[in-house]
């Protein structure tokens, strides 16, 4: 399995170790050696291993358990959902850094007691991230220093955004064709009525305005209904996938901006379709309209 291919799926997992926390040297010094060390475990691990708060568990870094240590479950946490890993079963635990080092350090390698995978840095001004990364790399060549915000060209979610936009455009084109077909039928249904009104002297302009107003009302009502359906679908999709993958990740979010944008596209489309279909009728000779 090649590095490149897997990297495309997990490129942002560099440094995504489960270790967070602060080395509490003072606390460790006063802790009794017989007392199990506190540990936090993920909800998923708690369910899978049938472990509850207060239980004492044993962790080891190898299957034979030669470096095993006991820990007391201090709390159960919900892992921060990661969209790049939503299919992964989040069986994870969190311990103080020095406890993990004690558990994993190799006595034959002194430096292993002082080794970490990642150091996270919070800057006073996040805008300095790029400059900070450059400065640090220059001072300590060999380090991989990376801002957490992705550049647009390296962001897979930007690509997915474009993908979804393309699909949305296709759907709008398809729906517009159907909408036009329905409007044509509707206009044809009213052919005699329109013909009679024209015979009475009602102008094309007046009829078009009436159609346009009708179109605004119907299109607005339809668009609002569509937005409500979208909100409903949002709940269903999120519920289904959150249950399926046992995650709190939000898969679909219909924001006010998205709803408004949808309405802003749907309403003019509805009006144009209605007016367009009616215009094909209005420009015909009056007598052909009233003739059966």
């Amino acid at each position: 399995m090649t590095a490149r291919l897997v990297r495309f799926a997990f490129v942002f997992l560099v440094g995504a170790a489960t270790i967070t926390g602060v080395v509490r040297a003072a606390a460790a010094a006063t802790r009794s050696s017989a007392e199990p060390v506190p540990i936090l475990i993920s909800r998923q691990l708690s369910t899978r291993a049938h472990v509850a708060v207060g239980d004492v568990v044993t962790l080891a870094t190898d299957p034979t358990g030669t470096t095993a240590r006991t820990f007391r479950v201090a709390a159960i946490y919900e892992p921060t959902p990661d969209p790049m890993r939503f299919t992964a079963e989040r069986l994870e635990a969190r311990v103080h850094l020095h406890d993990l080092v004690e558990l994993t350090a190799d006595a034959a390698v002194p430096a292993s007691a002082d080794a970490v995978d990642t150091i996270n840095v919070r800057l006073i001004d996040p805008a300095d991230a790029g400059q900070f990364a450059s400065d640090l790399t220059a001072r300590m060549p060999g380090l991989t220093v990376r801002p957490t915000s992705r550049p647009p060209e390296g962001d897979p979610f930007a690509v997915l955004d474009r993908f979804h936009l393309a699909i949305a455009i296709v759907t709008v084109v398809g729906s517009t064709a159907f909408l036009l077909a329905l409007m044509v039928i509707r206009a044809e249904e009213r052919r005699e009525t329109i013909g009679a009104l024209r015979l009475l002297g009602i102008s094309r302009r007046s009829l078009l305005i009436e159609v346009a107003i009708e179109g605004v009302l119907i299109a607005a009502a339809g668009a609002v209904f569509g937005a409500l359906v979208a909100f409903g679908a949002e709940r269903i999709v999120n519920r289904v996938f959150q249950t399926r993958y046992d995650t709190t990740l939000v898969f679909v979010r219909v924001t006010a901006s998205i709803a408004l944008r949808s309405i802003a596209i749907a309403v003019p489309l509805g009006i144009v379709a209605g007016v367009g279909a009616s215009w094909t009728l209005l420009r015909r000779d009056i007598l052909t309209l009233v003739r059966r």
Partner: protein
Amino acid sequence: MTSAWLAWRTTTRYRARSALAMIGVAVISALLFDMLLLSHGLVDSFADLLEHAGYDVRVLSTEGVPLLRAPIPQAAELAVAVGQLPEVESVARVRFERAVVTTQGRPDVDVALLGTTATGTHAAWTLLKGAELPNDPSLERCPLIVAQRLATAWALVPGSTVSIRATLPGRQSALPAVGCRVVGTADFLFASADEYDVATTMQGLREVKGGAADDEADLVLVASRPQAGPAAAVRAIAKLRPDLRVYSNEDVVAQFNRNGFAYFRQVSVVLSSMTVVFAFLLVGTLLTVSTNQRLGEIAALRALGIGRPRIASMLLYESALLVGGGGVLALPLGGMLAFGLDRILRQMPGVPERLHFFVFAPGALVLHLALLAATAIIAASYPIWLTARLPIAPTLRHEVVG
């Protein structure tokens, strides 16, 4: 004067609405077709890439991302041991590094450097010009196969020389650049659009890394004997070295299907379902409105003795014409749309250029046609029900009064 013929005449009579409905069906069905292609496309394409090099088993040190994975120590010894297994036909070791390539008058370029013992037909590239890496490493100190894109950009041909310097992650490095000779240019199977690939022998890789003896490999590739098959080879290697992770191509594809591909599979399922429902709603609405417009006509036909089955089959054929006509248009449209969507998705960083998200599969076409047929039938069911229970006399009366 069959029902199909009557439906055809009705469809052609109302040309504008029929054409618009077919266009709508075509566009929505094209999207449906593409989502069905997406449901397996990436996995099929990935499987093809894996099979292309001719190896069907992969050996790794641990699970997890390559960037965090430890290399396999004593890889040469492992390769010899694995090669002696009766289930195994050939073995190759692979090591990945990052490097910087320089040449006179051009800025440095970061490349993905691949050191390997695989060559010829069993390589992860297709040779375009020049020769393969030599089997005997002593023949050439640092031979290179460079990606055709890099060769084109730098006007490199077999025989050109470039300087190459390894960049070792996580370590301070002041390795000198090594002069290497380009022996061939190739298309790399797993190369992404945003990076260049260069391959060399294990000896060449050692040279680039400063000559340090390094018997590690990131990956050991194994080709099983045809008589034994990959499953048997996996079992044999796992028994030989239970500390390592051994996967057949099928296992890798299955894992990819579960993890890396999950998002696209879900998108495919959700969008396929939505487009089918959408198409059904739209065709159903169109047919219902159209039928409502003709209720007087239909009541008159019933009064004349035209039976319910004839009218029902007429409506069914009308639905079939709309959906069928749109469905036929959907195939070339879907092809073009798939091409466009594939281009968008392949812009993802790190995606091999030869990997495709939308791959034609006969099964997808069959499923597409079946779904369209079901849509046509279900969409016509409500209008058929309407006309079946149509009260003739009141309808005729209503038409006169109306």
